[in-house]
């Protein structure tokens, strides 16, 4: 009877009935008691307890229900990857209860249980189990089709997981970059020894251990183990070159030894904090072993991603103990030998009362000793090396009896298995490794020959042997890892053409390099590690669970193979074995062995599956890190905000869309004068003798004869003739030009120009400087704009004669020198575009409004500008053109000069002209001027699409709707009446106008 059951009878709180007297290596701090709630009941715990160790101490055995059959599940590995120990902590789902430390007041609940963990209604699935075989859903729920959503609803109800709340507070923890010479993955004896050796060889080392303390299996290795650990821990602590990360895991090794490390919370140790149980032995000697248990107060659960560019990676993760497959192997009370040893030695928890042990190795034997010491009654030891075996375990809520090889049925509440190991080769897979199977050792080993130069392997994953042999091997590996760092660093920089050339040319450098390489010590001799014989024990005589998180049994796998899913990958996908939260850590090798037995192939032939990163699950928050989503504002932004501008997100820019009524803003421009902030317009400063050649190449029109003081509109195409960008370029001096581009094209066109200059015409004398944000840009537009300009400028004669349309001047505006004035306009009105040094942008903006108050000067936003430019028929690249619109289709015939020798896209445009223009951009006016067809409304010609509206607005100037449209050439003739299908489905008629401009087609207003 569990302590809790007893407690409930007594009506009092649960007590830690299974807690043992103090153990030498325990990591709990008995002086610091806590309590937390489990499914609504308060439980006692000590600092250092994991959620599950505390529950186990109170006699709890069932922590979750399985996916399909809702079988009760308990402790299996007592480590991070314990499949039965996933719990919900507050709003955090899928917490690893056998790893997460208890904190005071923690609210913990079981997952996937309904109505309760104790009585789970879905448990009836166990009866249905016979036909809920793997892949059953592929064979049913097919008819009638209409019912599938209902079936699906049922399937979804069985989701085995925690829940996420929409109110979860956003969390984007900081990330960290690190540049260790050597990164050691695994803080067991081998990892520690390798780190020490590398540090002694002068390397900066990052030592990463997934558990809360360094030491690996030494921590539960009894007095001898603890003594050895104490020595190693002291050596690690003595090396300032080693940074230790505990409760951290290497998630993945990516190209270039770019390594992701996850530091876990809660309560990463405060530097130098001492761990409780310091008194308990050398484990906790110094900061090295300071476990999270020390951190106080415990911080909220957080994870932090460390991105390390390591020169060499030493993989020393140790081995993962493998479960044994037999009937009832998933019952609470069936545990791995490491699980019981961890429970007893680290948490002082008695795993059970009466135990049967199946052992095939020394660790199993050691577990027997630990159990005896803990006062567990060992009722039977089955030694696999002598033909011992376990046939089946039975019981309801947990193990009650075990049938062994000779058929005897033994009553017990604990069954411990020690049948072998799995090598976690995840990090090696990403380095080119394909593990090879050793029948002698009954496990896979890395294929060292295929490993890249910057990855080394040591510890149990590489071989067996005693502690002395392992540390000797690890020491050699650590030294070699450090030795290789210099060469790898040199190779990385020498890969750079310049440095390579430099190295080649400068004899001195070559000498230095040569010297360096000759001075470099030769490779370190790596001693071999023995490979111990181990019986091949995977699946026993009865069928049992292979994948505990997915409820996939050996029977399911055999069935899959029989159905033709006869490779590991197919069987895996069909049964979903290894697809769950464990990602194969416990189950892959058993699955491989079972598939092999079914196909009659050897395990080696069958091969194993590829481990994919991350090695351990990682929160989206940790991966994302802080949001770096910069936005760009003009210097006038404070004014815009102060005056209620509605923001418009335009790529990286936030712009004023409107201050009030856009139509009124537009009217003010037509009748008086308006100013708009056009700072985002791309601006490139071009200098050099060959600028005209560059312009002639980038633009479709001619630039050779642009006089100083002149401005010209230009269109750029890509090499496929598709319109890429447009803008104006003005000539400020003999060899000095200022180019403007579209706002979103600014970066693209800069790169475009550099591309041509650097790769096609490196001989041209042109220097390009982006000055987009060096200037604040303001367009002053409207019939009264000249009056306003005259009031604020000095040194510029702005009469029409002195400063005509399409000219540029430089001068002083509102007392600000070095301003550029362009007499151009997007609105169709008399207008000036001012580019003033950015720092004075706000000043000039406010001056314009102040000095122009009596002229009616008022700001207008992007929306008003769009209305005005549409009235004028100016196209917007990317809105009135698309990714296939060649220049002739955009109605730019007048600009395209095919008699130029060359320009980007010229051949395609020549062929377009010869082959018929195809689509055409036209002006369009709905017959009913009160209807504004939504942009993207389609133009229909007897049922077929013949074009679309690209731009549409109600024109304040004309009091009717006006549009631009891309239509089949057949319909481009002025006067053609087209049918437009509105989103509502309603169809209206619209007529093609004589030209794109709806207002002032001959452009008189701009030239006054």
């Amino acid at each position, binding site marked *: 009877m569990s302590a809790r059951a007893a407690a409930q009878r007594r009506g009092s709180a649960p007590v830690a009935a299974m807690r043992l007297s103090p153990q030498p290596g325990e990591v709990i701090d008995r002086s610091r008691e806590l309590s937390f709630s489990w499914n609504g009941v308060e439980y006692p715990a000590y600092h250092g307890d994991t959620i599950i160790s505390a529950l186990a101490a109170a006699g709890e055995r069932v922590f979750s229900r399985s996916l399909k059959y809702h079988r009760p599940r308990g402790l299996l590995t007592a480590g991070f990857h314990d499949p039965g120990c996933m719990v919900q902590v507050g709003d955090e789902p899928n917490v690893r209860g056998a790893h997460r430390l208890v904190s005071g007041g923690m609210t913990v609940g079981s997952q996937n249980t309904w109505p309760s963990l104790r009585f789970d209604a879905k448990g009836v699935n166990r009866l249905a189990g016979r036909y809920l075989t793997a892949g059953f859903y592929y064979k*049913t729920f097919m008819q009638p089709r209409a019912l599938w959503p209902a079936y699906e609803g049922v399937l979804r109800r069985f989701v085995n997981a925690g829940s996420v709340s929409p109110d979860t507070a956003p969390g984007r923890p900081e990330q960290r970059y690190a540049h260790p010479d050597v990164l050691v993955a695994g803080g067991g004896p081998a990892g520690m020894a390798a780190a020490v050796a590398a540090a002694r060889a002068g390397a900066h080392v990052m030592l990463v251990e997934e558990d809360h303390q360094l030491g690996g299996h030494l921590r539960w290795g009894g007095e001898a183990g603890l003594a050895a650990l104490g020595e190693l821990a002291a050596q690690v602590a003595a090396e300032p070159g080693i940074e230790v990360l505990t409760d951290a895991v290497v998630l993945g090794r990516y190209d270039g030894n770019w390594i992701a490390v996850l530091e876990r919370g809660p309560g990463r140790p405060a530097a130098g904090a001492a761990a409780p149980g310091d008194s308990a032995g050398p484990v906790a000697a110094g900061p090295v072993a300071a476990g999270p248990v020390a951190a106080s107060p415990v911080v909220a659960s957080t994870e932090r991603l460390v991105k390390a560019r390591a020169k060499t990676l030493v993989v020393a993760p140790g081995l993962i103990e493998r479960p044994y497959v037999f009937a009832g192997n998933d019952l609470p009370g069936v545990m791995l030998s490491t699980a019981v040893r961890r429970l007893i030695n680290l948490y002082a928890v008695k795993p059970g009362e009466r135990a049967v042990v199946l052992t095939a190795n020394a660790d199993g034997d050691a577990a027997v000793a630990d159990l005896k010491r803990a006062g567990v009654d060992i009722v039977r030891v089955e030694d696999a090396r002598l033909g011992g075996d376990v046939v089946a375990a039975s019981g309801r809520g947990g193990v009650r009896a075990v049938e062994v090889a000779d058929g005897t049925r033994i009553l017990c509440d604990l069954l411990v298995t020690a049948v072998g190991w799995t090598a976690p080769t995840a990090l090696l897979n990403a380095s080119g490794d394909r593990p090879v199977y050793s029948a002698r050792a009954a496990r896979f080993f890395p294929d060292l020959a295929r490993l890249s130069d910057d990855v080394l392997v040591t510890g149990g994953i590489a071989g067996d042997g005693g502690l002395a042999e392992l540390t000797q091997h690890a020491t050699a590996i650590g030294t070699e890892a450090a030795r290789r760092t210099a060469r790898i660093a040199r190779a990385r920089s020498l890969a750079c053409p310049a440095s390579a050339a430099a190295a080649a040319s400068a004899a001195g450098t070559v000498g230095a390099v040569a010297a360096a390489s000759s001075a470099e010590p030769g490779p370190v001799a790596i001693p071999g590690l023995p490979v111990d014989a181990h019986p091949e024990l995977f699946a026993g005589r009865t069928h049992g669970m292979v994948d505990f998180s997915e409820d996939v049994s050996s029977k399911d796998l055999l069935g899959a193979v029989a159905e033709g899913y006869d490779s590991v990958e197919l069987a895996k996908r069909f049964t979903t074995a290894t697809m769950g939260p464990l990602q194969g850590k416990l189950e892959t090798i058993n699955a491989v062995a079972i598939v092999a037995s079914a196909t009659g192939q050897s395990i080696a032939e069958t091969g194993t599956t590829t481990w994919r990163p991350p090695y351990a699950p990682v929160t989206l*928050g940790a991966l994302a890190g802080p949001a770096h989503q910069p936005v760009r504002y003009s210097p006038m932004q404070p004014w815009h905000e102060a005056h209620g501008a509605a923001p418009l997100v335009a790529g990286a820019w936030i712009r004023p869309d409107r201050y009030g009524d856009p139509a009124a803003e537009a009217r003010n421009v037509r009748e008086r004068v308006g100013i708009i902030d056009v700072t985002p317009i791309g601006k490139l400063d071009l200098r050099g003798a060959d600028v005209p050649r560059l312009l002639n190449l980038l633009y479709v029109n001619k630039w050779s004869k642009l006089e100083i003081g002149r401005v010209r509109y230009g269109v750029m195409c890509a090499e496929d003739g598709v319109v890429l960008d447009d803008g104006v370029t003005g000539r400020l001096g003999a060899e000095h030009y200022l180019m403007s581009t579209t706002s979103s094209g600014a970066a693209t066109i800069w790169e475009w120009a550099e591309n041509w200059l650097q790769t096609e015409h490196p001989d041209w004398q042109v220097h390009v400087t982006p000055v987009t944000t060096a200037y604040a840009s303001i367009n002053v537009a409207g019939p009264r704009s000249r009056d306003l300009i005259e009031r604020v400028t000095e040194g510029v004669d702005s009469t029409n004669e002195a400063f005509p349309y399409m000219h540029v001047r430089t001068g002083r505006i509102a007392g600000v020198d070095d301003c550029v004035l362009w007499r151009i306009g997007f609105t169709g009105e008399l207008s000036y575009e001012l580019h003033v040094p950015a720092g004075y942008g706000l000043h000039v903006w406010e001056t314009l409004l102040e000095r122009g108050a009596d002229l009616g000067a008022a700001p207008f936003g992007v929306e008003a500008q769009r209305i005005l430019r549409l009235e004028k028929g100016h196209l917007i690249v990317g809105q009135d053109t698309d990714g296939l619109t060649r220049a002739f289709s955009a109605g730019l015939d007048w600009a395209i000069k095919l008699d130029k020798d060359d320009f980007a896209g010229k051949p395609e445009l020549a062929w377009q002209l010869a082959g018929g223009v195809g689509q055409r951009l036209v002006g369009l006016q709905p017959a009913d001027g009160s209807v504004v067809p939504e942009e993207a409304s389609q133009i229909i010609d007897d049922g077929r699409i013949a074009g679309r509206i690209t731009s549409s607005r109600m024109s304040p100037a004309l009091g009717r709707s006006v549009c631009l449209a891309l239509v089949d050439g057949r319909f481009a003739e002025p006067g053609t009446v087209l049918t437009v299908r509105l989103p509502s489905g309603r169809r209206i008629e619209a007529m093609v106008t004589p030209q794109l401009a709806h207002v002032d087609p001959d452009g008189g207003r701009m030239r006054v």
Partner: protein
Amino acid sequence: MQASANGHRPGRGRTRYPARYSAFGLLRRGLVQQEWPPAWRSQPMKDRYDVVIVGGGVHGLAAAYYLAANHGITDVAVLEQGYLGSGGSGRNTAILRSNYLTPEGVRFYDRSIKLYQRLAADLDFNVMFSQRGHLTLAHSDASLRTMRWRAEVNKIEGVDSDVIGPAEVKRLVPFLDVSAAARYPVLGALWHPPGGIIRHDAVVWGYARGASARGVHLHQNTEVTGIDVADGRVRGVRTSRGDIATRVVLNATAGWSTLISDMAGVAMPVQTFPLQAAVTEPVKPFLSTVVVSGTLHVYVSQTDRGELVFGASVDPFTSYSTRGSLEFIEGLAGHVLELMPALTKVRVLRQWSGLCDMTPDFSPIMGRTPVDGFLTDVGWGTYGFKAGPVAGEAMAECIASGRTPEIIAAFGLARFADGALVGEKGAAAVGH
């Protein structure tokens, strides 16, 4: 043309399946503890086939299936270098939709959706097509315009799509941050009810089972090492398991399509980019639609197992590597949290990569080539899985009739030399 008009006709050329799948069958076999027979047979490789299909993914298997089912052509071999569905078919994010931009694109994918809807019945294999609706978010007025463009073309082609506002979006996906304060505010979305997700492996297995039942030979672990061409026509195929004489070869590969086409001497305007995806640990179902953000380059759906499946756009540079990158999951996580900040504590379980053959106009390259008897069904970029059934159906018809079916007329290789690219690129450069 009959075939493509009626699609697959179960009556025609149907052979009995080894064992009919049904709930009753499950129950009976469950009770008597009897195993199911193989879903497909494995035969020795012959030295001659009428048709050899390179690629044992959904495209190749569908083509084989429809060759047999619609045209009675059963002397067909499907060659797969790994296991069935080991390429793009098993690595995609299993999202189906037909809300494309061009009429030809919409018609094509709509046909695919219609075939998918009846696939379970046709194949007697539950492919679990869940038409839960597909939502493409617009974060700028430019992308909202593009959504409207797609919606209007869809409507005219009879496909159910429309633009909806932020409130409606929030109702469909309560976890979305639709506040104006968001860095990428949700201005609206393209809502496409017929879209959804499917069990991708099941589609592969269902077609394999159906093709095998009709006599098609499936050869796994068989790598094509060469293609024999003489006098401008295909003569045979060389494989890691021996040579095959044939007059028709269909290149239905993804990731390796240029390598295979090069063997036949046919140059393809294709570049191979990795496309990465990731899946989280299961959490209780909270997301019932597919959510896509073009601006943030991310798409999200939740499987019936509770996992969140994430996809993105292709990697920033060409590669044949499927090792994956850290930047990918970092960026992905950031973008997901921009959309659904509450998912910060959900854990990524696994990331993986597939290879995508990108063409200049985001459209496939289908049909015949300058080499007689060498056909292609390639260039599937990031959208190949959606098209599996219709591509298989059309390529089968193309092989059987020797004519190019209307439904793929726009996707011929010649369009590049002619400078007549498909308009799906139209949206590709719609800027601002």
